[in-house]
Protein backbone atom coordinates (compact mmCIF):
# COMPACT_ATOMS: atom_id res chain seq x y z
CA UNK A 1 0.00 0.00 0.00
CA UNK A 2 1.37 3.39 -0.91
CA UNK A 3 1.14 5.88 1.88
CA UNK A 4 0.61 9.51 1.08
CA UNK A 5 3.64 11.37 2.40
CA UNK A 6 2.39 13.38 5.34
CA UNK A 7 4.19 16.50 4.14
CA UNK A 8 2.05 16.49 0.97
CA UNK A 9 -0.99 16.94 3.16
CA UNK A 10 0.22 20.52 3.52
CA UNK A 11 -0.40 21.10 -0.21
CA UNK A 12 -3.91 19.71 -0.11
CA UNK A 13 -4.85 21.53 3.06
CA UNK A 14 -3.59 24.80 1.65
CA UNK A 15 -5.45 24.13 -1.62
CA UNK A 16 -8.63 23.47 0.34
CA UNK A 17 -8.22 26.78 2.14
CA UNK A 18 -8.69 28.57 -1.19
CA UNK A 19 -12.04 26.81 -1.64
CA UNK A 20 -13.29 27.37 1.89
CA UNK A 21 -14.39 31.04 1.47
CA UNK A 22 -16.41 30.00 -1.58
CA UNK A 23 -18.06 27.13 0.32
CA UNK A 24 -18.93 29.44 3.22
CA UNK A 25 -20.20 32.16 0.88
CA UNK A 26 -22.40 29.72 -1.06
CA UNK A 27 -23.80 28.37 2.21
CA UNK A 28 -24.59 31.85 3.53
CA UNK A 29 -26.10 32.98 0.21
CA UNK A 30 -28.24 29.85 -0.10
CA UNK A 31 -29.54 30.38 3.45
CA UNK A 32 -30.23 34.05 2.76
CA UNK A 33 -32.04 33.16 -0.46
CA UNK A 34 -34.22 30.66 1.40
CA UNK A 35 -35.01 33.27 4.07
CA UNK A 36 -35.87 35.87 1.44
CA UNK A 37 -38.28 33.50 -0.24
CA UNK A 38 -39.90 32.59 3.07
CA UNK A 39 -40.25 36.26 3.96
CA UNK A 40 -41.78 37.04 0.58
CA UNK A 41 -44.27 34.24 1.01
CA UNK A 42 -45.17 35.54 4.47
CA UNK A 43 -45.59 39.07 3.10
CA UNK A 44 -47.75 37.67 0.33
CA UNK A 45 -49.99 36.04 2.93
CA UNK A 46 -50.23 39.31 4.91
CA UNK A 47 -51.11 41.22 1.75
CA UNK A 48 -53.78 38.67 0.87
CA UNK A 49 -55.27 38.80 4.35
CA UNK A 50 -55.28 42.60 4.19
CA UNK A 51 -57.10 42.51 0.84
CA UNK A 52 -59.62 39.97 2.05
CA UNK A 53 -63.11 41.29 2.90
CA UNK A 54 -63.82 41.57 6.63
CA UNK A 55 -65.63 38.64 8.12
CA UNK A 56 -69.30 39.24 8.59
Amino acid at each position, binding site marked *: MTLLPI*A*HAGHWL*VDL*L*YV*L*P*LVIAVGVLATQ*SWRDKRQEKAEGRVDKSADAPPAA
Partner: protein
Amino acid sequence: MQRRRLLVLLVLLAAGLAVALPDAALAHGVVGREDLPIPKWLFGWAATAVLVASFVGLAVLWPTPRLEQPAERRLTSVPTLLDPLCGAIGVGLFVLVVYAGFAGTTAGASNLTPTFVFVIFWVGLAILCPLFGDVFAAFNPWRAIARAFAGIAALVSRQRLPAPLPYPERLGRWPAAIGILAFAWVELVYSGRGDPSNLAVLALAYAAVQFVGMSLYGIEQWNRYGDGFAVYYGLFARISPLRWERGAVYARRPLSGLTTLDPVPGTVALLCILIGTTSFDGFSNGPAWGSLSPRLTDAIAGLGVGQGTALELAFTIGLVGAVLAVASLYRLGVTGMQRESGAAMTATELARRFAHTLVPIALAYVVAHYFSLLAYEGQRIFYLASDPLGEGADIFGSADTIVDYTWISATAIWYVQVAALVLGHVAGLVLAHDRALAMFSDGRTATRSQYWMLAVMIAFTSLGLWLLSAANS
Protein backbone atom coordinates in the same frame (compact mmCIF):
# COMPACT_ATOMS: atom_id res chain seq x y z
CA MET B 1 -25.64 37.13 18.47
CA GLN B 2 -25.22 33.77 16.75
CA ARG B 3 -23.80 35.50 13.69
CA ARG B 4 -21.23 37.35 15.82
CA ARG B 5 -20.15 34.07 17.39
CA LEU B 6 -19.83 32.51 13.94
CA LEU B 7 -17.75 35.47 12.78
CA VAL B 8 -15.45 35.24 15.80
CA LEU B 9 -15.13 31.50 15.22
CA LEU B 10 -14.18 32.04 11.56
CA VAL B 11 -11.59 34.69 12.44
CA LEU B 12 -10.08 32.39 15.09
CA LEU B 13 -10.08 29.50 12.59
CA ALA B 14 -8.30 31.64 9.99
CA ALA B 15 -5.75 32.86 12.54
CA GLY B 16 -5.14 29.33 13.76
CA LEU B 17 -4.66 28.00 10.24
CA ALA B 18 -2.38 30.90 9.39
CA VAL B 19 -0.10 29.86 12.23
CA ALA B 20 -0.39 26.12 11.56
CA LEU B 21 0.08 26.33 7.78
CA PRO B 22 2.67 29.00 7.06
CA ASP B 23 2.51 28.53 3.29
CA ALA B 24 2.38 26.04 0.49
CA ALA B 25 5.10 23.63 -0.61
CA LEU B 26 5.66 22.07 2.78
CA ALA B 27 6.90 18.84 1.23
CA HIS B 28 9.52 20.37 -1.01
CA GLY B 29 10.81 23.05 1.27
CA VAL B 30 10.72 25.57 -1.56
CA VAL B 31 10.94 29.04 -0.15
CA GLY B 32 8.64 31.50 -1.88
CA ARG B 33 10.29 34.48 -3.47
CA GLU B 34 7.77 36.83 -1.94
CA ASP B 35 8.15 38.21 1.55
CA LEU B 36 4.53 38.34 2.67
CA PRO B 37 3.22 39.12 6.15
CA ILE B 38 0.44 36.49 5.85
CA PRO B 39 0.10 33.21 3.92
CA LYS B 40 -1.11 33.53 0.34
CA TRP B 41 -4.36 31.67 0.93
CA LEU B 42 -5.35 34.30 3.48
CA PHE B 43 -5.36 36.82 0.62
CA GLY B 44 -8.16 34.69 -0.84
CA TRP B 45 -10.15 35.12 2.35
CA ALA B 46 -9.48 38.86 2.38
CA ALA B 47 -10.49 39.13 -1.30
CA THR B 48 -13.75 37.29 -0.50
CA ALA B 49 -14.40 39.72 2.35
CA VAL B 50 -13.85 42.67 -0.02
CA LEU B 51 -16.27 41.18 -2.57
CA VAL B 52 -18.96 40.51 0.04
CA ALA B 53 -18.55 44.03 1.48
CA SER B 54 -18.78 45.48 -2.05
CA PHE B 55 -21.93 43.45 -2.71
CA VAL B 56 -23.58 44.73 0.48
CA GLY B 57 -22.41 48.28 -0.27
CA LEU B 58 -23.89 48.12 -3.75
CA ALA B 59 -27.21 46.79 -2.45
CA VAL B 60 -27.47 49.69 0.02
CA LEU B 61 -25.81 52.60 -1.74
CA TRP B 62 -26.50 51.95 -5.44
CA PRO B 63 -30.31 51.85 -5.77
CA THR B 64 -30.66 52.94 -9.42
CA PRO B 65 -28.75 52.08 -12.62
CA ARG B 66 -25.96 54.58 -13.24
CA LEU B 67 -23.92 53.06 -16.02
CA GLU B 68 -26.58 51.82 -18.39
CA GLN B 69 -27.00 55.02 -20.38
CA PRO B 70 -23.46 56.32 -20.68
CA ALA B 71 -23.09 60.04 -21.17
CA GLU B 72 -20.06 61.29 -23.04
CA ARG B 73 -18.50 64.68 -23.44
CA ARG B 74 -16.10 65.78 -26.09
CA LEU B 75 -12.69 66.33 -24.55
CA THR B 76 -10.63 67.60 -27.41
CA SER B 77 -10.12 67.47 -31.14
CA VAL B 78 -7.48 65.25 -32.66
CA PRO B 79 -5.75 65.95 -35.99
CA THR B 80 -7.29 63.73 -38.64
CA LEU B 81 -3.79 62.98 -39.87
CA LEU B 82 -3.14 61.02 -36.65
CA ASP B 83 -5.25 58.08 -37.79
CA PRO B 84 -3.32 57.30 -41.02
CA LEU B 85 -0.04 58.09 -39.23
CA CYS B 86 -0.73 55.53 -36.47
CA GLY B 87 -1.88 53.07 -39.13
CA ALA B 88 1.40 53.52 -41.02
CA ILE B 89 3.38 52.92 -37.78
CA GLY B 90 1.31 49.77 -37.18
CA VAL B 91 2.03 48.50 -40.70
CA GLY B 92 5.74 49.27 -40.25
CA LEU B 93 5.86 47.33 -36.98
CA PHE B 94 4.00 44.40 -38.53
CA VAL B 95 6.44 44.27 -41.45
CA LEU B 96 9.40 44.48 -39.03
CA VAL B 97 8.05 41.67 -36.84
CA VAL B 98 7.45 39.40 -39.84
CA TYR B 99 10.83 40.27 -41.38
CA ALA B 100 12.65 39.64 -38.08
CA GLY B 101 10.85 36.33 -37.80
CA PHE B 102 12.13 35.17 -41.18
CA ALA B 103 15.53 36.87 -41.35
CA GLY B 104 16.60 37.02 -37.69
CA THR B 105 18.25 34.55 -35.39
CA THR B 106 16.28 31.52 -34.29
CA ALA B 107 17.24 32.16 -30.63
CA GLY B 108 13.94 33.41 -29.22
CA ALA B 109 15.35 35.83 -26.64
CA SER B 110 17.58 37.55 -29.24
CA ASN B 111 14.87 37.93 -31.89
CA LEU B 112 12.29 40.72 -31.79
CA THR B 113 9.36 38.57 -32.96
CA PRO B 114 8.55 36.35 -29.90
CA THR B 115 8.99 39.17 -27.35
CA PHE B 116 6.97 41.61 -29.45
CA VAL B 117 4.12 39.17 -30.11
CA PHE B 118 3.77 37.51 -26.69
CA VAL B 119 4.78 40.34 -24.36
CA ILE B 120 4.45 43.80 -25.91
CA PHE B 121 1.50 43.08 -28.21
CA TRP B 122 -0.51 40.50 -26.23
CA VAL B 123 0.03 41.83 -22.69
CA GLY B 124 1.31 45.41 -23.04
CA LEU B 125 -1.47 46.60 -25.35
CA ALA B 126 -4.09 44.81 -23.25
CA ILE B 127 -3.01 46.92 -20.26
CA LEU B 128 -2.85 50.17 -22.27
CA CYS B 129 -6.38 49.87 -23.72
CA PRO B 130 -8.32 50.11 -20.40
CA LEU B 131 -6.29 53.20 -19.56
CA PHE B 132 -6.18 55.13 -22.84
CA GLY B 133 -8.94 53.64 -24.98
CA ASP B 134 -8.71 51.52 -28.11
CA VAL B 135 -5.05 52.05 -28.96
CA PHE B 136 -4.97 48.98 -31.18
CA ALA B 137 -7.71 50.29 -33.48
CA ALA B 138 -5.42 53.17 -34.39
CA PHE B 139 -2.36 50.98 -35.01
CA ASN B 140 -4.17 47.90 -36.42
CA PRO B 141 -1.98 47.06 -39.46
CA TRP B 142 -4.56 44.91 -41.25
CA ARG B 143 -7.22 47.59 -40.96
CA ALA B 144 -4.76 50.27 -42.11
CA ILE B 145 -3.70 48.26 -45.18
CA ALA B 146 -7.34 47.46 -46.04
CA ARG B 147 -8.35 51.11 -45.72
CA ALA B 148 -5.44 52.28 -47.83
CA PHE B 149 -6.21 49.65 -50.45
CA ALA B 150 -9.92 50.57 -50.49
CA GLY B 151 -9.02 54.26 -50.83
CA ILE B 152 -6.63 53.65 -53.71
CA ALA B 153 -9.08 51.28 -55.43
CA ALA B 154 -11.86 53.89 -55.22
CA LEU B 155 -9.50 56.55 -56.57
CA VAL B 156 -8.29 54.45 -59.49
CA SER B 157 -11.72 53.13 -60.50
CA ARG B 158 -13.28 56.59 -59.94
CA GLN B 159 -16.43 55.03 -58.55
CA ARG B 160 -17.67 53.72 -55.24
CA LEU B 161 -16.58 50.20 -54.39
CA PRO B 162 -19.33 47.55 -54.25
CA ALA B 163 -21.05 47.35 -50.86
CA PRO B 164 -19.87 44.52 -48.59
CA LEU B 165 -22.07 41.55 -47.74
CA PRO B 166 -24.30 41.93 -44.68
CA TYR B 167 -22.54 40.37 -41.69
CA PRO B 168 -24.40 37.16 -40.72
CA GLU B 169 -26.08 37.68 -37.34
CA ARG B 170 -25.46 34.08 -36.29
CA LEU B 171 -21.71 34.49 -36.80
CA GLY B 172 -21.54 37.18 -34.08
CA ARG B 173 -18.14 37.23 -32.37
CA TRP B 174 -17.44 33.56 -33.09
CA PRO B 175 -14.67 34.30 -35.65
CA ALA B 176 -12.95 36.45 -33.02
CA ALA B 177 -13.39 33.74 -30.38
CA ILE B 178 -11.84 31.14 -32.68
CA GLY B 179 -8.97 33.53 -33.54
CA ILE B 180 -8.16 34.16 -29.86
CA LEU B 181 -8.41 30.44 -29.03
CA ALA B 182 -6.00 29.71 -31.89
CA PHE B 183 -3.57 32.36 -30.60
CA ALA B 184 -3.78 30.94 -27.06
CA TRP B 185 -3.11 27.47 -28.47
CA VAL B 186 0.01 28.75 -30.23
CA GLU B 187 1.16 30.52 -27.05
CA LEU B 188 0.51 27.70 -24.60
CA VAL B 189 0.51 24.44 -26.56
CA TYR B 190 2.28 24.66 -29.92
CA SER B 191 5.81 23.25 -29.61
CA GLY B 192 7.11 25.41 -32.48
CA ARG B 193 6.20 28.73 -30.82
CA GLY B 194 9.81 29.41 -29.90
CA ASP B 195 10.86 29.53 -33.56
CA PRO B 196 10.43 33.12 -34.80
CA SER B 197 9.91 32.01 -38.41
CA ASN B 198 6.86 29.97 -37.36
CA LEU B 199 5.42 33.05 -35.69
CA ALA B 200 6.06 35.09 -38.85
CA VAL B 201 4.21 32.51 -40.97
CA LEU B 202 1.29 32.48 -38.52
CA ALA B 203 1.19 36.31 -38.46
CA LEU B 204 0.91 36.35 -42.26
CA ALA B 205 -1.76 33.65 -42.21
CA TYR B 206 -3.74 35.62 -39.61
CA ALA B 207 -3.44 38.78 -41.71
CA ALA B 208 -4.65 36.88 -44.80
CA VAL B 209 -7.77 35.71 -42.95
CA GLN B 210 -8.47 39.29 -41.84
CA PHE B 211 -8.15 40.59 -45.41
CA VAL B 212 -10.65 37.98 -46.64
CA GLY B 213 -13.03 38.85 -43.78
CA MET B 214 -12.77 42.59 -44.40
CA SER B 215 -13.22 42.25 -48.16
CA LEU B 216 -16.36 40.14 -47.65
CA TYR B 217 -18.08 41.96 -44.80
CA GLY B 218 -16.54 45.42 -44.78
CA ILE B 219 -13.58 46.79 -42.83
CA GLU B 220 -15.36 48.23 -39.79
CA GLN B 221 -17.91 45.43 -39.51
CA TRP B 222 -15.22 42.73 -39.58
CA ASN B 223 -13.09 44.62 -37.06
CA ARG B 224 -16.06 44.91 -34.73
CA TYR B 225 -16.89 41.20 -34.72
CA GLY B 226 -14.43 39.07 -36.67
CA ASP B 227 -10.84 40.15 -36.00
CA GLY B 228 -9.88 38.41 -32.75
CA PHE B 229 -7.32 40.99 -31.68
CA ALA B 230 -9.46 43.99 -32.62
CA VAL B 231 -12.32 42.53 -30.57
CA TYR B 232 -10.00 41.58 -27.67
CA TYR B 233 -8.51 45.07 -27.32
CA GLY B 234 -11.86 46.69 -28.14
CA LEU B 235 -13.49 44.91 -25.19
CA PHE B 236 -10.80 46.11 -22.77
CA ALA B 237 -10.97 49.62 -24.24
CA ARG B 238 -14.64 49.79 -23.20
CA ILE B 239 -13.42 49.90 -19.58
CA SER B 240 -11.51 53.10 -20.36
CA PRO B 241 -12.82 56.59 -19.54
CA LEU B 242 -11.63 57.64 -23.02
CA ARG B 243 -13.20 56.88 -26.39
CA TRP B 244 -11.45 57.83 -29.60
CA GLU B 245 -13.32 58.64 -32.74
CA ARG B 246 -11.88 60.01 -35.92
CA GLY B 247 -11.00 63.62 -35.14
CA ALA B 248 -12.00 63.69 -31.45
CA VAL B 249 -11.60 62.16 -27.99
CA TYR B 250 -14.58 61.70 -25.71
CA ALA B 251 -14.66 61.25 -21.92
CA ARG B 252 -17.10 58.95 -20.12
CA ARG B 253 -17.45 57.11 -16.82
CA PRO B 254 -15.02 54.21 -16.48
CA LEU B 255 -16.78 50.88 -17.21
CA SER B 256 -19.79 52.63 -18.76
CA GLY B 257 -18.61 51.74 -22.28
CA LEU B 258 -19.20 48.08 -21.44
CA THR B 259 -22.93 48.54 -20.92
CA THR B 260 -23.41 49.26 -24.63
CA LEU B 261 -21.70 46.02 -25.66
CA ASP B 262 -24.02 44.28 -28.12
CA PRO B 263 -24.46 40.73 -26.79
CA VAL B 264 -24.20 38.94 -30.12
CA PRO B 265 -23.52 35.17 -30.30
CA GLY B 266 -19.95 34.23 -29.44
CA THR B 267 -19.41 37.06 -26.94
CA VAL B 268 -19.73 34.83 -23.87
CA ALA B 269 -17.59 32.18 -25.56
CA LEU B 270 -14.86 34.71 -26.34
CA LEU B 271 -14.74 35.92 -22.73
CA CYS B 272 -14.72 32.37 -21.36
CA ILE B 273 -11.86 31.59 -23.75
CA LEU B 274 -9.91 34.59 -22.44
CA ILE B 275 -10.41 33.63 -18.78
CA GLY B 276 -10.06 29.88 -19.41
CA THR B 277 -6.85 30.05 -21.44
CA THR B 278 -5.21 32.39 -18.93
CA SER B 279 -6.32 30.05 -16.14
CA PHE B 280 -4.78 27.13 -17.98
CA ASP B 281 -1.53 29.06 -18.35
CA GLY B 282 -1.35 29.35 -14.55
CA PHE B 283 -2.61 25.80 -13.97
CA SER B 284 -0.10 24.26 -16.38
CA ASN B 285 2.73 25.77 -14.33
CA GLY B 286 1.44 24.25 -11.07
CA PRO B 287 2.03 20.88 -9.41
CA ALA B 288 -1.44 19.47 -10.19
CA TRP B 289 -0.92 19.67 -13.96
CA GLY B 290 2.71 18.68 -13.45
CA SER B 291 1.58 15.29 -12.14
CA LEU B 292 -1.44 14.89 -14.45
CA SER B 293 0.21 15.90 -17.72
CA PRO B 294 2.78 13.05 -18.01
CA ARG B 295 0.10 10.42 -17.36
CA LEU B 296 -2.23 12.00 -19.95
CA THR B 297 0.62 12.28 -22.46
CA ASP B 298 1.58 8.62 -21.94
CA ALA B 299 -2.03 7.53 -22.37
CA ILE B 300 -2.28 9.43 -25.68
CA ALA B 301 1.15 8.18 -26.81
CA GLY B 302 -0.12 4.65 -26.07
CA LEU B 303 -2.62 5.11 -28.90
CA GLY B 304 0.27 5.18 -31.35
CA VAL B 305 0.86 8.94 -31.48
CA GLY B 306 4.38 10.37 -31.32
CA GLN B 307 5.54 11.74 -27.96
CA GLY B 308 5.67 15.37 -29.16
CA THR B 309 2.17 15.24 -30.68
CA ALA B 310 0.89 13.42 -27.57
CA LEU B 311 2.21 16.25 -25.38
CA GLU B 312 0.52 18.85 -27.59
CA LEU B 313 -2.73 16.87 -27.51
CA ALA B 314 -2.56 16.58 -23.71
CA PHE B 315 -2.08 20.34 -23.41
CA THR B 316 -4.88 20.93 -25.92
CA ILE B 317 -7.20 18.82 -23.77
CA GLY B 318 -6.14 20.82 -20.72
CA LEU B 319 -6.67 24.12 -22.54
CA VAL B 320 -10.14 23.22 -23.79
CA GLY B 321 -10.99 21.73 -20.39
CA ALA B 322 -10.10 25.00 -18.65
CA VAL B 323 -12.28 26.99 -21.06
CA LEU B 324 -15.20 24.60 -20.53
CA ALA B 325 -14.74 24.77 -16.74
CA VAL B 326 -14.91 28.57 -16.80
CA ALA B 327 -17.94 28.49 -19.13
CA SER B 328 -19.68 25.99 -16.82
CA LEU B 329 -19.02 28.16 -13.78
CA TYR B 330 -20.49 31.21 -15.49
CA ARG B 331 -23.46 29.20 -16.72
CA LEU B 332 -24.06 27.95 -13.19
CA GLY B 333 -24.14 31.53 -11.90
CA VAL B 334 -26.52 32.64 -14.65
CA THR B 335 -28.85 29.68 -14.08
CA GLY B 336 -28.92 30.54 -10.37
CA MET B 337 -29.65 34.16 -11.25
CA GLN B 338 -32.51 33.08 -13.50
CA ARG B 339 -34.08 31.03 -10.71
CA GLU B 340 -33.66 33.72 -8.05
CA SER B 341 -35.06 36.52 -10.19
CA GLY B 342 -37.78 34.55 -11.94
CA ALA B 343 -36.64 36.18 -15.19
CA ALA B 344 -38.76 35.26 -18.19
CA MET B 345 -35.78 34.97 -20.57
CA THR B 346 -33.72 31.85 -21.20
CA ALA B 347 -30.43 31.23 -19.42
CA THR B 348 -28.59 31.70 -22.74
CA GLU B 349 -30.18 35.12 -23.26
CA LEU B 350 -29.45 36.09 -19.65
CA ALA B 351 -25.84 34.92 -20.04
CA ARG B 352 -25.46 37.23 -23.04
CA ARG B 353 -27.05 40.19 -21.25
CA PHE B 354 -24.53 39.84 -18.42
CA ALA B 355 -21.55 38.95 -20.65
CA HIS B 356 -20.04 42.43 -20.23
CA THR B 357 -19.50 41.69 -16.51
CA LEU B 358 -16.83 39.16 -17.55
CA VAL B 359 -14.70 41.77 -19.34
CA PRO B 360 -13.02 43.26 -16.21
CA ILE B 361 -12.50 39.71 -14.92
CA ALA B 362 -10.77 38.71 -18.16
CA LEU B 363 -8.57 41.80 -17.88
CA ALA B 364 -7.85 41.01 -14.22
CA TYR B 365 -6.74 37.51 -15.20
CA VAL B 366 -4.49 38.86 -17.98
CA VAL B 367 -2.87 41.42 -15.64
CA ALA B 368 -2.53 38.99 -12.74
CA HIS B 369 -1.00 36.20 -14.81
CA TYR B 370 1.17 38.19 -17.19
CA PHE B 371 2.24 41.25 -15.21
CA SER B 372 5.54 39.67 -14.18
CA LEU B 373 6.14 38.70 -17.82
CA LEU B 374 5.68 42.30 -18.88
CA ALA B 375 7.70 43.64 -15.95
CA TYR B 376 10.72 41.43 -16.64
CA GLU B 377 10.64 40.02 -20.17
CA GLY B 378 9.16 43.25 -21.50
CA GLN B 379 12.51 44.95 -20.85
CA ARG B 380 14.00 42.93 -23.69
CA ILE B 381 12.33 45.33 -26.09
CA PHE B 382 15.02 47.93 -25.27
CA TYR B 383 17.86 45.86 -26.70
CA LEU B 384 15.67 44.22 -29.36
CA ALA B 385 14.73 47.66 -30.72
CA SER B 386 18.40 48.22 -31.45
CA ASP B 387 19.05 44.70 -32.65
CA PRO B 388 15.73 43.22 -33.88
CA LEU B 389 17.33 40.39 -35.82
CA GLY B 390 19.80 39.42 -33.11
CA GLU B 391 22.74 39.85 -35.42
CA GLY B 392 24.83 42.33 -33.44
CA ALA B 393 23.33 45.61 -34.70
CA ASP B 394 23.02 48.66 -32.42
CA ILE B 395 20.61 51.03 -34.18
CA PHE B 396 19.56 53.14 -31.17
CA GLY B 397 22.59 52.49 -28.95
CA SER B 398 20.60 50.31 -26.53
CA ALA B 399 21.81 46.89 -27.67
CA ASP B 400 23.79 46.41 -24.44
CA THR B 401 20.76 46.89 -22.19
CA ILE B 402 20.13 43.93 -19.91
CA VAL B 403 17.00 42.76 -18.13
CA ASP B 404 16.89 44.21 -14.61
CA TYR B 405 15.16 41.67 -12.37
CA THR B 406 15.52 43.92 -9.31
CA TRP B 407 13.48 46.97 -10.34
CA ILE B 408 10.35 45.42 -8.87
CA SER B 409 10.32 42.80 -6.13
CA ALA B 410 8.39 39.54 -6.22
CA THR B 411 6.38 40.84 -3.24
CA ALA B 412 5.35 43.96 -5.16
CA ILE B 413 4.34 41.81 -8.14
CA TRP B 414 2.18 39.64 -5.87
CA TYR B 415 0.40 42.74 -4.53
CA VAL B 416 -0.22 43.98 -8.09
CA GLN B 417 -1.64 40.58 -9.01
CA VAL B 418 -3.95 40.48 -5.96
CA ALA B 419 -5.06 44.08 -6.51
CA ALA B 420 -5.82 43.35 -10.18
CA LEU B 421 -7.89 40.30 -9.30
CA VAL B 422 -9.86 42.05 -6.55
CA LEU B 423 -10.46 45.24 -8.57
CA GLY B 424 -11.48 43.27 -11.65
CA HIS B 425 -14.03 41.23 -9.73
CA VAL B 426 -15.42 44.22 -7.85
CA ALA B 427 -15.84 45.93 -11.25
CA GLY B 428 -17.66 42.80 -12.46
CA LEU B 429 -19.97 42.97 -9.45
CA VAL B 430 -20.69 46.66 -10.07
CA LEU B 431 -21.60 46.00 -13.70
CA ALA B 432 -23.77 43.00 -12.80
CA HIS B 433 -25.59 44.95 -10.07
CA ASP B 434 -26.18 47.90 -12.41
CA ARG B 435 -27.53 45.64 -15.17
CA ALA B 436 -29.75 43.76 -12.69
CA LEU B 437 -31.25 47.06 -11.49
CA ALA B 438 -32.04 47.99 -15.08
CA MET B 439 -33.54 44.60 -15.90
CA PHE B 440 -35.50 43.52 -12.85
CA SER B 441 -38.61 45.12 -11.43
CA ASP B 442 -37.28 46.25 -8.03
CA GLY B 443 -34.01 46.64 -6.12
CA ARG B 444 -34.76 43.69 -3.88
CA THR B 445 -35.17 41.26 -6.78
CA ALA B 446 -32.10 42.76 -8.45
CA THR B 447 -29.96 42.22 -5.36
CA ARG B 448 -31.29 38.70 -4.83
CA SER B 449 -30.64 37.83 -8.46
CA GLN B 450 -26.99 38.65 -7.88
CA TYR B 451 -26.40 36.16 -5.05
CA TRP B 452 -25.18 33.61 -7.57
CA MET B 453 -23.13 36.11 -9.50
CA LEU B 454 -21.42 37.00 -6.22
CA ALA B 455 -20.64 33.32 -5.73
CA VAL B 456 -19.23 33.18 -9.29
CA MET B 457 -17.05 36.24 -8.62
CA ILE B 458 -15.74 34.69 -5.39
CA ALA B 459 -15.06 31.44 -7.28
CA PHE B 460 -13.13 33.26 -10.02
CA THR B 461 -11.14 35.27 -7.45
CA SER B 462 -10.25 32.20 -5.38
CA LEU B 463 -9.37 30.30 -8.55
CA GLY B 464 -7.16 33.15 -9.75
CA LEU B 465 -5.29 33.39 -6.45
CA TRP B 466 -4.92 29.61 -6.21
CA LEU B 467 -3.51 29.47 -9.74
CA LEU B 468 -1.05 32.25 -8.99
CA SER B 469 0.12 30.66 -5.76
CA ALA B 470 0.40 27.24 -7.44
CA ALA B 471 2.38 28.67 -10.35
CA ASN B 472 4.78 30.48 -7.99
CA SER B 473 5.24 27.64 -5.50
